[in-house]
Structures are given as structure tokens and as C-alpha cells.
């Protein structure tokens, strides 16, 4: 049987439509599956590492949260570093904020153990990560709060007086303080 041009066009459209339906159904299924993984990780249950490898960066971000909760800091750090530049602005902001939380939690632990040499660089890294998150979204209140926590943990002495903010004093006054929270008023 001969097939006319119109029939050819009709069949081509039909085939393309069917193919697209299959692809969209597969994508829909993948999204639902990954949402289920995110929910599982956030509820405190791990998922197989093979599932995370090909998944969206949001799944890795959720796994980094899980790993930090489990105090598996090195794995959480490696996971966050993998997705630091992935996704849109919101995801990048959250990645940097969570990275700051990861450093800050370790800095606090080290400070409590009186390991100031270890705490100092961690607090500095935490501040840097929070600042990066706030550059992406200056209305991110959690990042503001935790940056202030990090600043209190590691105060910058030359910030006290406005006159000390010239670049020369900036270079000469690194690590002039001991980390720790001011006890404040009763």
C-alpha cells in the first residue's frame, strides 16, 4: 500500500507524540522517585549510594543533611562540594548555607573541646560560606543568624572601631583573637 505525504506526516506526528509521552512519563516517575528519596533522607534514613549518583543535586543536598546529622562530616563535606555550583540560585544558596552549618558545627565542637587551633580555620570557612549564601540572597535570615553565631565564635578584633578598617590593618591583624562565645550578662 502506498503512503501519501499527508499520511506520512500524520504517522510521524503520532510516533513523535507517543515517544514524547513515554519520555514525559519516565521523567515524571523519576521526579516522584527522587522526591521520595529526599523525604526519606530528611526523615533520617539513608538510601543506597547508587541511587544518589545519577540523581538531581537536591537529592545530594538532602543526603548531606542526613550525613551531618549522623556526624559523618567528611562525607557530608564531599557531597556538598560536588554540588556547590550546580542548580539554580536557590539551590546554590542552600548548598553554601549548609556548608557553613557543617563548618560551624565542627568549629563549635572543637571550641567546646578547647581545640582552638582546629576551631579557628573552621569558623573562618563557615563565615565565608554564609557570606557567599547572603550575597546570593540578602534576605536569607537563617544565614544571617548563623553568620552572627560564627562571628561571635570568632570575633574580628579590628571590626570594633571604624577607623581600623583600612586595608593595611586588615593584613596585619589576622588571628588576633581566641574563639569562644562571650558569656554575656546573666
Amino acid at each position, binding site marked *: *500500500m502506498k*503512503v*501519501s505525504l*499527508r*499520511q506520512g506526516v*500524520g*504517522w510521524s*506526528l*503520532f510516533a*513523535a*507524540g*507517543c515517544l*514524547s*509521552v513515554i519520555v*514525559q512519563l519516565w*521523567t*515524571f516517575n523519576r*521526579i516522584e522517585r*527522587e522526591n521520595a528519596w*529526599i523525604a526519606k533522607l530528611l526523615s533520617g534514613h539513608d538510601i543506597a549510594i547508587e541511587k544518589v549518583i545519577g540523581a*538531581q543535586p537536591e*537529592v545530594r*543536598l*538532602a543526603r548531606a543533611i542526613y550525613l*551531618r546529622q549522623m556526624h559523618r562530616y567528611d562525607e557530608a563535606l564531599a557531597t556538598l562540594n560536588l554540588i556547590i555550583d550546580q542548580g539554580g540560585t536557590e*539551590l546554590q544558596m*542552600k548548598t553554601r*548555607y*549548609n556548608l557553613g*552549618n557543617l563548618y*560551624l*558545627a565542627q568549629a*563549635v*565542637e572543637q571550641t*567546646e573541646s578547647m581545640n582552638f587551633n582546629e576551631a579557628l580555620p573552621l569558623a573562618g570557612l563557615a563565615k565565608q560560606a554564609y*557570606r557567599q549564601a*547572603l*550575597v546570593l540572597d*540578602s534576605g536569607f*535570615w*537563617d*544565614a*544571617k*543568624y*548563623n*553568620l*552572627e*553565631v560564627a*562571628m561571635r565564635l570568632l*570575633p*574580628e578584633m579590628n*571590626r570594633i572601631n*571604624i577607623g581600623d*578598617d583600612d586595608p593595611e590593618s*586588615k593584613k596585619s591583624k589576622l588571628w588576633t583573637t581566641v574563639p569562644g562565645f*562571650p*558569656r*554575656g*550578662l*546573666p
Partner: protein
Amino acid sequence: MNNDERSAWECILRLTLLLGVLISGCSGSLEQSVSRFEFLTPKPFGYVIGDEIAHRIVIDTRSGIELNGNTLPKQGELNRWLTVNRVEHSQSKTGQGMRHVVDIRYQVFYAPLEVKMLAIPGFSVTFNQRGQAIEQAVPSWHFTISPLRELAVRKDDAGEYMRPDAPPARLSNRETVSRLYASLLIVVLSALYLAYLYGYLPGLTRRGIFKRAQRQLARLPERDIASALSVVHHALNTLNRNPLFQHKLDEFYRNQPDYRKLADELNAFFEVSNRYFFAGYGDIGRDDFGKIERLCRLCREVERGGR
């Protein structure tokens, strides 16, 4: 000192004075060059760590004066607690001069223990006029910043209180669902189109004229030429919406151009019909029934869009 020496000194003094007057006349003063300077700032209180502060500087100058962009603050860290996030300079013509608008967005990263006054440092904007530099000072700007947390240490079960991790947003499937609906629409429309082409749409009976004729021919006893001719005539009349005769075939082809490719077969059909019905040749040939069937099949193919 004699008279000649005195006159020479006077001459030198006069020339020096004249030169001074000429130089001061050539140089553009700030008052002449800048006709308007406006420094637009937001409220100077109520800031916390991480807030952005937007400043706008509007300067009207004479034409022919160019702003030196290098004298504006550079993007990046200005000092430990102050960052310049964005600097935008635009200029437009206003009357006889130029209007320069500079937008600067600062971000403050200062963690005070109590409400504290800070200052965004001032700077000088330089304009170039025929190789000479004219400066316009932008004053420093004072504001107060407040702490977000109390001075006393606040602890929870995990130690020092800090805000928890930010969970990822649920992955959106909205776009996928939209694309799925669009794909389904394409499938349905293309299926309807194919059904139309193949004559399977019950509402569009004109696509099934020769399909029905084929069925009727199949039911006829062989050699019943009269009935076979009637069936095909009826189908052609239905398609033409009027009785179709051989001499009206050209008009038929104009209305149904797809059937022009069957011109030979249709002519042959009408000749057979004329001979059978009007010339009285009852026995017109053994394979004429087959030819009528073939014509009907070809018409059916045209009807389905296959030819």
C-alpha cells in the same frame, strides 16, 4: 638697581600675573562644571548583618565632561565588613548637559554586640574635562546596625543554638506534566487526523463513500454488471453532490483534483456504462466487472489519501 633693571622686573611681574590670570581662566572649576549633586540614601537605621544598602548618586554636568569610571567604588570587598555587590553607571542628556546616575549596592557583614553606628566611607568622583580633572566628593554615610541574637549564650540539646540546615525544595513536576499534556494532545490530534485520512471517522461519511461501495460490490453476484455500474455511479454522484456524467468530468476534477489521476479509468468506466445502458450491449466483456471493482478500489485509495 637702575631704571632699566627696574623696568625689566616690572615687565616680568606683569607677564607672570597675566599668565596666572590666563591659567585660572582656562581651568574648569567645580561650581561651573557640576550643576547638580544629589546623594540618595535609604533610612539610616534598622540594619542587621547581611543586609544590602542601596545608594544612588545623581550628578548633572556640562556637556563634554566625562566621568572617570575608575574613581567609582570597585565591586568586591571594601573592608572587612563591607562589600560592594554592584556598581552601575548610566548617563543621559539633559538640556545642555549630561546626567550621570551611579547606583551602588553595598552589603554589610558586621556582627555588633549592641546597636552600633557604622559608616560607609565616602569617595571622590572624578570628571575629565579637556585633560583636566574635576573632583566631586561623595560624603560618608552613617547608619546603625543591630544584633540578631542576645548577648548571653543560648544553648539547645546539640550545644550552641544555630539555625538548622536548609532542606532542598521538593522537585517540581509542573513542567513535566505540562509537556505530558502537550504530548497527549499531539497523539490525540494526530490519531484523529489519521482516522480522518483512513475514513474511520463516523461523522465524516464522505471519506467512506467508496468504502461502502466496495462492500456493496463484494456482496453482488458476479456478472451483475448493471448493479455494479449503479453502485459506482451512486458513489460518484454522492461524491460530486450531483449526478456525474462523462461530459462533466472536467468540472468534477476541478472540485476533486485528487481524482484527476484516475481520469483514464473514469473515462473507461463511463464508456462501459454508456455502452451498457444506452447502446444496448448487454454482454460487454468478461472482465468488465473486474475493471469496475478496480476503479472502486482506486477511488477508495484516493479517498483514504493513499494516492
